[in-house]
């Protein structure tokens, strides 16, 4: 899947994450801030990368403001942001794990 325009999914509520994806050329570039950065920063990055890989996103800039989201939430927010970035309407976004 190709990230065509900037898109956002999620909120800043606790146990959620706000994910922004933007088009870029040089592979995947990630910027992460998290309320549990010291404890789980590495795991969060791994979940994001894995989700993007499943979606076959090769190039994008992804910015995550994590507020202690569960992995399933994080995954769903990344998927949603990517879907929105390639013009899928809100109605047919398969929230949370359509792509395995």
């Amino acid at each position, binding site marked *: 899947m190709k990230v065509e325009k900037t898109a956002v999914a999620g909120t800043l509520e606790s146990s959620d994450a706000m994910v922004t994806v933007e088009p870029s050329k040089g592979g995947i570039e990630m910027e992460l801030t998290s309320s549990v950065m010291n404890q*789980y920063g590495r795991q969060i990055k791994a979940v994001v990368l894995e989700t993007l890989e499943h979606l076959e996103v090769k190039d994008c800039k992804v910015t995550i403001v994590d507020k202690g989201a569960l992995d399933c939430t994080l995954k769903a927010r990344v998927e949603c942001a990517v879907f929105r970035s390639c013009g899928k309407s809100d109605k047919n976004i398969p929230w949370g794990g359509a792509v395995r």
Partner: protein
Amino acid sequence: MEVTLDQVLKCREERAERQRELIDKFSKPVVSFCMNIAGPVKTDNLIERAFRLGIRRLEGGLLSANARILFKDVLYRITGPEAVFCVDLPVRKLKEISTRIEDSDRLGRLFDIDIINTDYSKVERSELGLSERRCLICNNEAKICSSRRIHSVEELQSCTHQILENSVPEAEADLVASLAVKALLCEVYITPKPGLVDRENNGSHKDMDMLTFAGSAASLHPYFRKAYLCGNNFEKLRKLGLQAEESMFFETGGVNTHKGAVFTMGIVCASTGIAVNEGNYDSDCVLDICARLSKGIVERDLKSLDSSECTTAGQKLFAQYGISGIRGEMEKGLPSVRKYGLPLLEKLLKEGKTWDQAGSNALLAILANITDTNMVSRGGLEKARQASAQAGKLVSEGFVPLEKVRELDKAFCEQNLSPGGAADLLAVCCYLHFAKEAFGV
């Protein structure tokens, strides 16, 4: 009912969108209040009740800081109840208030109050140097446990349920008791009232005044509290009622101010508890339960007695005249309150009439539709019936101006009449009016 992850996530985005719209509209910070409930079931009877108590605390906290609440909206969604406020107060102050409430007790742990600044950013505890929220189960920082699901959903749910079970009925009982006491005070306060103690005179009474009633009402607070928690156990309620009478008589030095109210309001408080527990609170429901709880009481208390066994005024009058009094009224679910007193009180208040105007009119409407045993025992059956008819004639002509009520007051005092039974029922009307705000959806 269980919700899916996507319902929860969609709901959060919608909430954030509403918050942004409010900030754009009012240019003031937003306070968002939700319940902190782990697992797929986000709402049920207890959760909604806790939420209502939380809103009271939150609004109280805001008002204590002289906040102006510019906007308030409450939503009961399948993803959990939520409320949003737009408030004219600095975010720092708002965060202090919300943190204080969240950290105040175990129930507060289940409240999730977010403060959103006018730049749409969420105010964090750490920004203000406030301590982080603790985990529901262990003493770790909450976000560390929750983001990795350190504790199982089952464990979290069971802990949550325990907090709700332990805190919610108790907090509601406090609230109900204070509303019941307020209603008793409100009844005394309403002026003028024919033959009764009010702000202008002590009616037909020589041994009591407003202060006697104030003390008596306050002494009944613990009783109303216990009554709320009593459930369907009517025998237990009657025992609590006898204790309450003792407290009252001690307080008043032997004057009967609220014996009737102990019976009437006690059953109403117990019925409130049952209605709230059953999850369908409204005034009619409470009155239906009053009838259910007191079923058979005329038979048990009155019909089965020989005249020699009669001790209370109600029992003597039943033996003499066959008047079933407050027991009969209660068994029917207080029709004088349901059909006459409460609708009239609420209609007049809604029209902008004062409590004195609305309350005195409601009292007359009640008096017109019962045989008040206090009236009978003071003046005999004939005079009591005449007085009822007089009240009925007045209210049938529409709104009764206070001067007319004062004339009736004078006439009652001259005949030593006092409609104490109707007064207790007026207090019930006041109570149901207050409780509607507290428990009605």
